[in-house]
């Protein structure tokens, strides 16, 4: 949970005339564009490190938007700053995956090493220490980010070494890194053919020629020059491709709603706000093969009649944003994006927009609000974005992995694609196995693999000395499964049957060292932090769950707490506005069902069998 306040005394912030003129230049560049607020704020913050009131004022006046909207928007997102910070901002991840890998201990180490608390800056002005709800680098949990650069698999020694390097002026330039976390090709590879990740780790993502050499943009060319938009929609329908963001809505069907609409302009939005804890797949695609995403977007644009696309990348994914922008520039230069593609009347342009620390913006209508420059409040549906989305125009919102699957479908046909995977969920899926396995990794395989195969075949089994306790499949909002589910095919329908969810395809594997109550507290903390606050049940319910679980973990629980939690959960599920509030209590409800004795031990015996909770 975050509370943002700024004090009026900051109005006196001393900004140099040079900096101000640069700010004016940023404003001028975006002035006539709709939805300019977020990019302008981000560039201004890049320039100054924070956004003093005087700068907010300039931006409000320059973009001709109310000052209350500038701060209202800024304060919604956790990455904006309006007070000066250290040269290096350390953001320690406290997401559930990092939590089960000991992030609380690592935080203590950081505090000790830096000599400051959370929210403070070292006296030399070098480091500020902050917590973040999720960095999206769960395969290297526990992790932290220093400015744009991620450091994972943290230990006391590693932290010492990194801090020493930074103190010695050896800061890392994220643009020079090959990848944010790991080399995909070092992971255990699937014997089957890769559809989405085929180029990742093979081509140079900064070179369009590498992509072209692999047949890049041939699907776009094929669609644009030899197919009708309707045929493209039909092909994707045939493929059975379902949305890979979590909800699993059939992609071709979604497109077919927007295609016939006469309203113009229409938009394609690629949802790259990969915020679901445990979910890391889209980063590999964007970092390793950015053109594939762009090609998928352009094909979608052709199919539905849109000529403008936005790719909304989560704020922490600096390298993804950098590579996507580079790819866009190159594709434009070579005529794969821009006006009149392949000599036809079809034009398509893509703009990168950055999220800035808000999980709910992964919800499509909140994401749209965010692109428009507002607080990320989900909209009431209907109307659905396909009919009235961005600036109330028809808008197709698809996940990165979904769009990256499209070029292969166009090139090789929907019939080919649906031979992969299960009947219920066709194609390949990028699974992400994290937590207490030997080597957390991602793998792209046809849908339908079992959890046991994922753990044993790809991740080398559980880590040393571990016994399997539970797995949270599909992301932080999904339910838990126990060992009973190890042999269930990981597709949408089968997982739903056992109380899990395919979701984004992430599998947070947990062993006996995890206390289910403590884990639920960590999940609750995440949702309380990320609740947008628009609707009553989620705004008030998420912190109540967190407070109650915290009390239980501290040994101050009361017997009626479990009933209370169930009551809270029921109200949230029934009455919340958007999927965040509706699903946030899901894991808790499944934990209460599967592990109720553990909760009761905490309450009645003040006992934590995992030894995680310390009772005062």
């Amino acid at each position, binding site marked *: *949970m*975050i*509370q*943002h*306040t*700024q004090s*009026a005394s*900051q*109005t006196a912030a001393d900004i140099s005339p040079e900096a101000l003129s640069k700010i004016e230049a940023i404003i001028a560049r975006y002035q006539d564009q709709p939805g300019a607020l977020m990019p302008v704020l981000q560039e201004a913050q890049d320039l100054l490190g924070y956004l003093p*009131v005087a700068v*907010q*004022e300039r931006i*409000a*006046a320059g973009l*001709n*938007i*109310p*000052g*209350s*909207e*500038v*701060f*209202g928007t800024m*304060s*919604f997102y956790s990455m904006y700053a309006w007070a000066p910070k250290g040269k290096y901002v350390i953001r320690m991840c406290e997401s559930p995956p990092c939590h089960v890998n000991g992030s609380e201990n690592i935080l203590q180490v950081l505090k000790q090493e830096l000599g400051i608390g959370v929210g403070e800056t070292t006296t030399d002005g070098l480091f500020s220490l902050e917590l973040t709800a999720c960095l999206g680098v769960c395969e290297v949990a526990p992790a932290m980010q220093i400015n744009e650069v991620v450091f994972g698999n943290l230990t006391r020694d590693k932290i010492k070494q990194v801090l020493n390097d930074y103190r010695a002026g050896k800061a890392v330039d994220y643009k020079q890194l090959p990848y944010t976390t790991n080399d995909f090709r070092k992971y255990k590879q699937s014997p089957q053919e890769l559809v989405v990740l085929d180029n990742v780790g093979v081509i140079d993502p900064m070179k369009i020629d590498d992509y072209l050499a692999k047949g890049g943009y041939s699907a776009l060319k094929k669609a644009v020059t030899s197919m009708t938009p309707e045929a493209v929609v039909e092909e994707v329908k045939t493929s059975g491709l379902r949305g890979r963001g979590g909800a699993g809505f059939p992609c071709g069907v979604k497109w077919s709603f927007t295609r016939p609409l006469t309203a113009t302009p229409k938009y394609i939005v690629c949802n790259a706000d990969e915020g679901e804890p445990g979910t890391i797949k889209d980063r590999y695609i964007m970092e390793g093969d950015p053109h594939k995403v762009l090609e998928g977007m352009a094909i979608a644009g052709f199919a539905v009649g849109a000529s403008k696309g936005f790719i909304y990348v989560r704020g922490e994914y600096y390298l993804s944003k950098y590579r996507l922008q580079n790819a866009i520039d190159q594709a434009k230069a070579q005529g794969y994006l821009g006006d009149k593609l392949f000599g036809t009347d079809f034009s398509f342009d893509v703009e990168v927009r950055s999220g800035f620390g*808000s999980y709910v913006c992964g919800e499509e209508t909140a994401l749209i609000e965010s692109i428009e420059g507002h*607080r990320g409040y989900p909209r*009431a549906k209907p109307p659905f974005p396909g009919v009235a989305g961005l600036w*109330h125009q028809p808008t197709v919102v698809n996940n990165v992995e979904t769009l990256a699957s499209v070029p292969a479908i166009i090139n090789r046909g929907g019939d080919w694609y649906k031979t992969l995977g299960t009947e219920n969920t066709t194609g390949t899926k990028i699974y992400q196995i994290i937590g207490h396995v030997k080597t957390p990794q991602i793998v792209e395989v046809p849908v339908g693999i079992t959890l046991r195969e994922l753990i044993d075949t790809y991740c080398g089994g559980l880590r040393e000395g571990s016994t399997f306790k539970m797995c949270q499949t599909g992301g932080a909002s999904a339910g838990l499964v126990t060992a009973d589910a190890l042999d269930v095919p990981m597709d949408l329908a089968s997982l739903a049957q056992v109380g899990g969810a395919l979701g984004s395809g992430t599998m947070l594997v947990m062993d006996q060292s995890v206390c289910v109550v403590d884990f639920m507290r960590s999940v609750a903390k995440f949702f*309380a*932090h*990320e*609740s*947008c*606050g*628009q*609707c*009553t*049940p989620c*705004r*008030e*319910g*998420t*912190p*109540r769950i967190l*407070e109650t679980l915290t009390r239980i973990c501290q040994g101050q629980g009361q017997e009626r707490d479990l009933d*209370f939690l169930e*009551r809270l959960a029921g*109200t949230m*599920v*029934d*009455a*919340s*506005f958007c999927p965040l509030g*509706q699903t946030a209590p899901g894991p808790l409800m499944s934990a209460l069902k599967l592990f109720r004795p553990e909760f009761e031990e905490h309450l009645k015996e003040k006992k934590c069998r995992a030894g995680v909770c310390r009772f005062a």
Partner: protein
Amino acid sequence: MINLTIDGKALQVKKGKTILEAALANGIHIPHLCYHPAIKAIGSCRICVVEVKPGPPRPQPACTTTVAEGMEVITQSERLQDLRRELVKFILVNHPLDCPWCDKAGECLLQDLTHELGIDVVDYEAVKVPPHIDYESRLIERYATRCVTCGRCVRVCRDRVGASAINFESRGYFTELGCGHVPLECEFCGTCIDICPVGALINKLFKYTARSWELTKTKTVCPYCGGGCNYEVHTKNGHIHRVRSQGSLLLCGRGRFGFGVLEAPERLHQPLIKKDGQLVAATWDEALDYAARGLKEVIDNAGPDALYGIGSPRATNEASFLFQKLIRAGLGHNNLDSPARYNFARALAGIAAVFGEAQVSGVALGSVKKGVYQSPWEVQEEAKGSGFPFVLGNAHHLSHADVILIVGADVTPEMPTYGWRIMDALKNENFRLVVANPRKTKFDRYANLNLRYQPGSERLLLIGLMEAVLEAQPGYSPHLEAEGFEDFKKTLLKTSLSKVAKQAGVKDADLRQAGKLLAQAQAPAIIFGHDLMAQEQGQDNVIAVADLFLLIGQPCNKGSALYPIAEKNNTRGVCDVGVMPNYLPGYQSLAEGGGAFAKLWGKPVSDKPGVTLEEMLDQLENNEPEAPRALYLLGGDLVRLLPNRQRTERLLQKVRFMVVQDAFLTDTARLADVVLPVAIHAELDGTYTSTDGRLGCLQAALSPNGTRPDWQIITELSQRLGYPMKYGSAPAIFAEMVQLMPIWAGIKEGHRWPHKKISVSLNGKFVPFSTEISIPGEGKYTLIVGKTLAHSGSYTTHAHGPQTIMPGAELKINPADAQALKVNEGEPVKISSTQGEITVPIAVTVEIPRGVVFLADHFSDTPANLLTSNSNLCRVQLQKG
């Protein structure tokens, strides 16, 4: 229509309605909190959830779910009531429950919900969030701990008021309201107070003065601008404690917080008469006798023509009507006018020049007796009307216009109601807004195009717009029957577009784009105001506007009309009921209309037009034999409000005897021989006519406390002058007035004239106007004297609320100019013109372009009209004060 059932009751509902709207309209109660009919539903509190079949298993919010054919809705069930209880408990858990001292008690939705749902305990605790107040408002008290985060205030401020002064800040459990700490954009309208379902926003003027259930509510009309807002005054023990909008929530700050004018310590409660050069208190009889004696002496010596009457745009229709009757029937001449001469009367004259005089036929006196404040004239099937009143727009239709051009008006300060209508129009996605003003005004933010022209160059701009329309669509011709188009094109429109653009200081391309928008418009409307009308050549400016409207106007389409802004509550009314030297009531000509009047009044009515207020002052200036020897002023603080203060003062001193009726000892009243204190605002009965011709009915809620209504004073004076006029009440005067005004046929409370059933046949002729642009005086800066939102005329300077917001004049100036003058924000600057000089502090703002400065004209200690000559524009010199 959609068929559905709600709780088993079969209903037919218009398509697109929500379940909640359908339920409320049919008397079915669904508990709700964040929903309010004045704003867009967002479904955030979730309290209105209902079960919908067919539909998702999850209950759906009734406020955002639209009705569908065959839908079955259940609004009451155990599951739903349980959910609602849990939701209200979520809010109650940390709600302060300080109802005993909360001003909202008794009208609090949370109280009602808690009571209705029978919640007697919240069986858990929650961490409290420390309240954080980022801005202390001077009129609106914030109680952050009482906030239920429903966002009603945010939505009403953003979507209806258009100020966006408040927004949500932070998120999740920490979501709170804030202003963002950049210059506060609050208009201090206080609408947020009334839309707040709880006591999170409290009216500081009301706080702790009364409990809601103790208040007596009286419906009346706001006495400030020409918007004619109906409101309720809430009184207790003979004092007014607050006012509330009636019908809509919206009021501006002057209306909501300006009622203190009633109890202002400077109010006059006793008549004053001049003794030995000093005004001293007198009894009513003494003062009336003294006044009558003085006037009679002038009449006896110099003839009745020597008494000139000056009406007031503040006075009621009834007082104004009696006033002109006294002059016309009692004295037998037409020498009367009002300060509207300097603005709205110019609009009427300019529009009349292009669209002709008012004509109406096919209306007849009805046989059935009508109610109070209702015209006896009935509109027949064949009723027809033509002329200028039929070009004047209906405010309720303004939001139907597809293009609105605002020229020479700062809409919200001049007339907030039009501003609200524009906000409504903006919801229509095909709507386009063009704002033309030398300075940045509120609606620049919402405009598709801004035309920042040089002060005073309106006529050139309008020529440019007409040329741009013709260029956008070659062969374009007026939609109305129009004379003289070809000549007009050859003469006035012969200068190239680029040239006029350059002269007016706007870009060719912008002009062309505006022309395109206007040419494509199906229902274009033009709003113009004080900035344009108050210039020396204000009437020519209006003619240019009317010519443009003749070119593009399509009055057959809803909203396509001219919308001149009448400055005060009854500016339109004072003109309508004949306080003009050239019209009888209802804009009837002196030559033709006199008969009915003479018959009813039993006195002949002169057909010789009187002189205008401007002409009368010139007569005084030139010591002409026709110059008046006595003045009878029904309010109308000429010294304060007319341009060129020193001249006005000097000329009024030439008058031998002057009677002033006013609520305050105004600058003009100080020069009078007799000052008669009048009842105002909630002390009055009678009617006002809003700027768009709507009849607003006043009801007295308070005793006049020593003062008397204008109409009563007029009758008493008239009696003493030998022309008895006997009326028992304002409605009795109204009855006589409307009987003489067939053009008001069909009018009654809340309705406007001309009546909508009168079929309109409009035609016009293009009227040339002078293209010479000059701003009087010398100096580097152009001063614009205009209006601000905090005040209305000078009245509000006597009210605590508006004075809190803007206690005195300030000169708005561009930052670069301020820097060049080496004057900082709030420091004084001396403004000097050929007429005089004043010193005021500056307010630095980018709203004002370089070389231009802006001063509001409300304040008596720093009167802007000390600087002006015969216009609201003049050149001035500035120096550090």
